[in-house]
């Protein structure tokens, strides 16, 4: 520890800290532009100059390490003069267009100029102009305003993992640009808006809609992935105008993914359902709540009464709140049905009844960054968990080794140490190889139960599996077996896998052998919460798949667009189509709900109170940040009244807190959570090692980042991004294309089950042989079947040339 003095205040700081760190610790303000605590130090703006005793020139506080006994002055004459000069210098080329600049009112340059600059400008010469750039639909640019602090450049390179912007030219001609006409496509790109200290980078969707001081700011929780990012929703006249991150070091730090930041545009979509609707003779009619609820409740009761309670199926989106999930489950139980599920995109439920607790990520979010070895199985990390990917990126930058087993070779923008890219079916084989390799390692072999060692008898371990195993066990070096810093994570592709249970038990075995943390990176904002409230069949009821396979007469859908949110789109569509009564609680009118019977408008997360439980088991409640649109009502209220109308007991809630209390039995949520989180299985599950290769083509149906749920799908700016407009519809390895005799760009017929679609074939070297990448959750593929499963491809015969008519 070093003792230093800043402005007469003595402070003890750690070796290696800079003056700016020390001042921040003391709460002494030092103006800055280029410095950011999460980025590397560039020291190029010079705004942070301070006077240091025994130095005859001012020093940049952000880049000067403290020395013992250092005396620093931030407001001395020399310091103030230096700051004023830098300010004057920075303003030379900065346009004074604050009145038409979106950053006005929340601009670092404006604030610091007021606090540290001279009262008037002496500059009368011409200012430079920088030609503006278009870097995509999310970030608006005004490059003449840029002060070249390079925060945006450093963010994209260091945090985003790909240098998409750069500082070209020199001196007065220096400017920030992307390469020629490229756009910035990072899934974290919105953060450069927050980082930019001036109005050079602003939010394109938000542009010119409001002044920062007109906005009401309310805290909430991001509703799209399992991270549980804390957000601040900005509202004017009851309308959500933008979303910014709230700083929470242990969750989202000061960042936000683009999905969480720009999805709000979907809240204001014209698709929003404003009044309840009932279908009569194939025609939709608007109605009032009383009629709609009585109709829905009555109809459901009637079906249950005449055909048995087993005829009711309840499907709940994993992005619904805990309260909604709990009440929907309670409603089903109340009517005597055990057919409830939130795992809409899952297809393998063999682990039901064998889990010991609620499945979670196995550790806390910041722990990920501390790991030395990470194995990720079946995940397109950047797509599924953009900010978690960023933590893994940092772990790897600090020396961790990342291995992946995946059916897609997409670049996570993280250096991968070892990888096994294989067809979905082969993933199970690869995992058993890794297990065998791990179990064969010294000191660990003793721990393997007989049943497993028998199973692994004939398995031949390939080189890359061996390498992954070696990496996980720390290369045979003595590992800290008490608290090894290694982890095995299952991503969305694993969870949607037809052999999820086998993958799960193999991964669990691998991690327990090498003492690694084992966890599941759940897809929805409330997957873990829905698991905790028990929104799953308990006593042999039907699950999300069987409910559709053996169609029910009645369904209740909570925030579900069946053909986009379910594992098997075609199956979902058919089941809903044939049902006698479908009660859909939804925030949107949607094509996918055309076959419903009643539409009950419920509010999205901004207009309801509720609770999400993140993948690390954190229970986060939020309140409504704005009023419900039209007649829409919070989901928990609608479910409560539906319960009342159906004459069920235990639906007397006055607030969502009461529902929450019921969920946690009046206990502190954390107590309940720590008791229930558990990724172990009661017993080992049979794993079938297939040696034969698949003869058929396999579909790899990932869920694209900006299609994951109903809100995101309706956000115009996100839908305009390259990720969406350039999305691959049928990605096939180029060699496979040649083998099949298909040309790149050709329209092909893909068939799955009874459905088919015509898609464009694209050469995609990231897809393994024998596989086709066809995303789910989009209308173009909503007629197809399983996300992961067999698929057939046919060329479309060219239409016969018209016969020439000869005279």
């Amino acid at each position, binding site marked *: 520890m070093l003792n230093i003095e800043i402005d007469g205040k003595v402070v003890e700081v750690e070796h290696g800290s800079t003056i700016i760190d020390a001042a921040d610790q003391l709460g002494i303000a030092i103006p800055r532009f280029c410095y950011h605590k999460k980025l590397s130090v560039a020291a190029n703006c010079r705004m942070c100059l301070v006077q240091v005793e025994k130095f005859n020139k001012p020093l940049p506080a952000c880049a000067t390490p403290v020395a013992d006994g250092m005396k620093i002055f931030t407001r001395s004459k020399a310091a103030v003069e230096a700051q004023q000069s830098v300010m004057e210098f920075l303003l030379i080329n900065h346009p004074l267009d604050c009145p038409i600049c979106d950053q006005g009112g929340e601009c670092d340059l404006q604030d610091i100029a007021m606090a540290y600059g001279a009262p008037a400008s002496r500059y009368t010469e011409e200012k430079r102009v920088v030609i503006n750039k278009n870097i995509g639909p999310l970030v608006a640019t005004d490059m003449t305003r840029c002060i070249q602090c390079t925060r945006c450049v450093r963010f994209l390179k260091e945090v985003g993992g*790909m*240098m998409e912007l*750069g*500082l*070209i*030219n020199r001196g007065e001609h220096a400017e920030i640009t992307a*390469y020629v006409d*490229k756009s910035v496509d990072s899934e974290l790109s919105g953060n450069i808006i927050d980082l930019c200290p001036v109005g050079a980078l602003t939010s394109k969707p938000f542009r010119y809609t409001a002044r920062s001081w007109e906005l009401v700011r309310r805290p909430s929780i991001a509703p799209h992935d399992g991270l549980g990012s804390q957000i601040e929703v900005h509202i004017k006249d009851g309308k959500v105008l933008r979303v910014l991150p709230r700083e929470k070091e242990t969750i989202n730090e000061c960042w936000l993914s683009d999905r969480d930041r720009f999805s709000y545009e979907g809240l204001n979509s014209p698709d929003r359902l404003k009044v309840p609707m009932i279908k009569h003779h194939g025609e939709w009619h608007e109605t009032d709540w009383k009629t709609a609820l009585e109709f829905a409740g009555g109809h459901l009761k009637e079906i249950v009464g005449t055909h048995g309670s087993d005829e009711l199926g309840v499907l709940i989106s994993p992005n619904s709140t805990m309260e909604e999930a709990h009440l929907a489950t309670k409603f089903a139980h109340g009517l005597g049905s055990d057919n409830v599920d939130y795992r809409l995109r899952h297809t393998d439920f063999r682990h039901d009844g064998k889990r010991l607790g609620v499945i979670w990520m196995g550790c806390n979010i910041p722990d990920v960054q501390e790991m030395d070895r990470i194995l990720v199985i079946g995940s397109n990390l950047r797509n599924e968990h953009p900010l978690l990917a960023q933590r893994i990126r940092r772990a790897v930058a600090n020396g961790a080794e990342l291995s992946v087993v995946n059916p897609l070779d997409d670049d996570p923008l993280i250096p991968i140490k070892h990888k096994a890219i294989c067809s979905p079916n082969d993933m199970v084989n690869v995992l058993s190889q890794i297990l065998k390799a791990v179990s064969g390692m010294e000191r660990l072999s003793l721990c393997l139960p007989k049943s497993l060692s028998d199973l692994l008898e004939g398995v031949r371990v390939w080189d890359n599996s061996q390498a992954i195993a070696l990496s996980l066990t720390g290369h045979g070096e003595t590992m800290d077996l008490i608290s090894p810093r290694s982890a095995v994570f299952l991503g969305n592709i694993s969870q949607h896998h037809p052999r999820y249970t086998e993958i799960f038990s193999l991964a669990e075995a691998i991690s327990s052998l090498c003492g690694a943390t084992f966890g599941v990176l759940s897809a929805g904002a409330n997957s873990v919460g829905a698991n905790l409230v028990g929104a799953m069949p308990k006593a042999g009821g039907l699950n999300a798949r069987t409910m559709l396979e053996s169609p029910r007469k009645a369904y209740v859908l909570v925030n579900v667009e069946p053909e986009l949110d379910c594992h098997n789109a075609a199956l979902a569509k058919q089941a809903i189509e044939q049902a006698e009564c479908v009660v859909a609680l939804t925030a949107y009118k949607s094509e996918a709900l055309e076959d419903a019977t009643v539409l009950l408008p419920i509010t999205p997360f901004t207009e309801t109170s509720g609770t999400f439980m993140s993948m690390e088991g954190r229970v986060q409640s939020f309140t409504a940040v704005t009023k419900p649109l039209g007649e829409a009502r919070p989901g928990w209220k609608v479910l409560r009244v539906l319960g009342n109308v159906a004459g069920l007991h235990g639906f007397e809630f006055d607030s969502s807190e009461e529902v929450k209390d019921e969920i946690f039995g009046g206990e502190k949520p954390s107590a309940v959570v720590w008791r229930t989180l558990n990724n172990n299985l009661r017993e080992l599950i049979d794993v079938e090692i297939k040696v034969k290769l698949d003869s058929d083509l396999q579909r790899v149906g990932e869920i694209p980042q900006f299609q994951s749920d109903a809100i995101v799908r309706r956000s115009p700016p996100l839908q305009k991004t390259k990720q969406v407009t350039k999305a691959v519809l049928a990605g096939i390895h180029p060699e496979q294309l040649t083998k099949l005799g298909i040309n790149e760009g050709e329209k092909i017929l893909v068939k799955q089950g009874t459905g088919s679609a015509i898609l464009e074939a694209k050469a995609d070297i990231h897809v393994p042989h024998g596989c086709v990448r066809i995303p789910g959750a989009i209308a173009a593929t909503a007629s197809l079947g399983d996300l992961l499963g067999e698929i057939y491809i046919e060329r479309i015969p060219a239409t016969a040339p018209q016969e020439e008519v000869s005279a």
Partner: protein
Amino acid sequence: MSLSAESLAKIERELAKYPPEHRQAAVMSALRIAQTEKGWLSKDTIAEVADYLRIPAIAALEVATFYNMYELEPVGKYKITVCTNISCMLRDSEEIVDHLEKKLGIGFNETTADGRFTLKEGECMGCCGGAPLFHINNTDMHEYLTPEKVDKILEGLDK
């Protein structure tokens, strides 16, 4: 379009000077080698160099635009860069510039119609002792210039 095997071999030679995980370190030499082959650095050439070094294209562009000996526009067969900084100026570099401008009929940053000559203004080349001076195509330095000497040098150049 793409770089010749010879240039790539030269780049490989440069790469061998640095640890394998620091391929970026060879960016300046690689750009120079590419420019020698192509005459100038088009955006495509820069992107190709970047790809070869496995760095983002923008990172190579940053370097290419920072140093003014990299040419981002096509130049003539002979690029003459005259130093006009203080020492050369005191030794009358202006006269040399005037002479060249008159003789070639072009100003700074222009190329003769026959594509033979481009004139560029250079910064101090660290050889003030030989002022005034210029170099041709970045490598061929000529000192103690007089208009007569300039004529001779230009005559000596290949058509």
